[in-house]
């Protein structure tokens, strides 16, 4: 089967809209996390319950601005209430709306990309490792090469190496869809209609924590991707992904 030499137009267009959406999602997502930099597991998590992780990323980190807790029920160990006296950092007015706007852009672009990839055979031809290609020996050799930063020169098209295929396929088919699903699990309207999301992810706070972890993976992927682009010939790669040369 002849391998096309260049990135097709729809791959280039969806790549850049997707890239811009991801950048906006990372920035706005970080701003949202700054409002409440605590992560939990399960259905419940707030300043009066223990956190899984507390991130020192905003003035709200371990702020002590709470009145003395008062019990909300009788008996020992009863849940408590306390009033906040600290003026917190909160830019979620634009942070949340910007996040959802970029999420719409990425979801629609992603849907177009998936459709294009299925119709054109891009996925089976270029993204999913061919029969016999995915062996432990091959994978190990490629991994060793990458660790030593011995990177092949770019060819200007989708002739991907095995490690590259695995990374792209994992991001496209696993990580990005999971970020969307865990994001939707935080929506009270969506989970009223689809309560199975709460069951699958073990609660809204688990979903929020998984959502954050997935984005950490995505940011690491983008950094590795940029490094590989630079090492394999930055100008050549940019030409390939912009004008399709």
């Amino acid at each position: 089967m002849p391998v096309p030499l260049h990135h097709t137009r729809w791959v280039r267009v969806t790549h850049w809209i997707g890239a811009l959406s991801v950048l906006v999602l990372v920035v706005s997502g970080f701003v949202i996390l700054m409002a409440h930099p605590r992560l939990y597991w399960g259905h419940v998590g707030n300043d009066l319950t223990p956190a899984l992780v507390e991130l020192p990323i905003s003035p709200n980190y371990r702020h002590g601005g709470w009145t003395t807790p008062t019990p909300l029920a009788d008996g020992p160990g009863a849940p408590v209430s306390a009033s906040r006296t600290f003026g917190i950092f909160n830019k979620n007015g634009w942070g949340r709306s910007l996040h959802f706007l970029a999420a719409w852009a990425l979801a629609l672009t992603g849907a177009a990309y998936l459709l294009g990839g299925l119709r054109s055979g891009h996925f089976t031809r270029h993204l999913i490792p061919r029969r016999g290609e995915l062996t432990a020996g091959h994978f190990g050799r490629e991994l060793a090469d990458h660790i030593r930063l011995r990177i092949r020169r770019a060819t200007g098209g989708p002739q991907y190496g095995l490690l590259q295929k695995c990374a792209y396929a994992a991001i496209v088919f696993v990580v990005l869809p999971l970020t969307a699903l865990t994001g939707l699990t935080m929506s009270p309207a969506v989970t009223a209609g689809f309560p199975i999301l709460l069951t699958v992810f073990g609660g809204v706070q688990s979903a929020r924590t998984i959502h954050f972890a997935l984005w950490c993976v995505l940011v690491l992927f983008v950094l590795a991707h940029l490094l590989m682009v630079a090492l394999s010939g930055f100008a050549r790669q940019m030409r390939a992904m912009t004008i399709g040369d």
Partner: protein
Amino acid sequence: MSRPRPTRRELLLGGLSAAGGLLLTGCRYDLPPTYGNILRMGDALTYAAHRTLLPTRALAREYSRADVSSFPAIGTTDPGNAALPTFNPAYGETYAKLRHGGFADWRIEVAGRVARPGTYSLAALQQMPSRTQITRHMCEEGWTAIAEWTGVPLAHVLRAAGTLPSARYVTFETFDWWRDNIDMVDALHPQTILAYAMNGRPLPVPHGGPVRQRVETQIGYKSLKFLRRIYVHDEFDDLGKDGSIANGWSWYAGI
């Protein structure tokens, strides 16, 4: 006379409105205004998608008593306390007096597009059919808490007041001078209640006593505390400088 060429913004807006109109064909929902703000256009898209794709009567998950958790009180925690920065002179002193009297003189007003406008005391609300639900509060900040709420379904109050068929929005006004509104889909949702009890006790003041709104299909900031007045209307009202839109927040907060 030639028409002026539309600007790019007008073209974009027109296109989005047309897309919204297509999405909403045959539905009873109007998109909230966007004022040319791209963030508000995203919010409107989310609203249209939710109203088109999600079942409108689906219940938010209800939990068991064992799941009831600690619950922070944020924002206004006492509208009658003049020492707090959230104090609003418009109704703050009135609230302090009402609280002093154990809320015996508290009344909620139901007005606007209803056949029988009037006021209801706390006792009157408590004599209406009640609903108790153990639900999860999701704050836009990212935290959650579970509590048991008891109150009268807003749908019952609206029926008692005789909402006119043309009515499509319900605005809430509070003693800390917050105002916000929801559409009839959320107003008539079975879990949308005027709550007067929390975890089996009278609703504590920091959590919105004597009566607060619970809208379980939206983020916490749509569940207004310290209710004073309910206003039913036909057309969308952005509530001017008091509204969430002017303050940079999404009017619809189902996500």
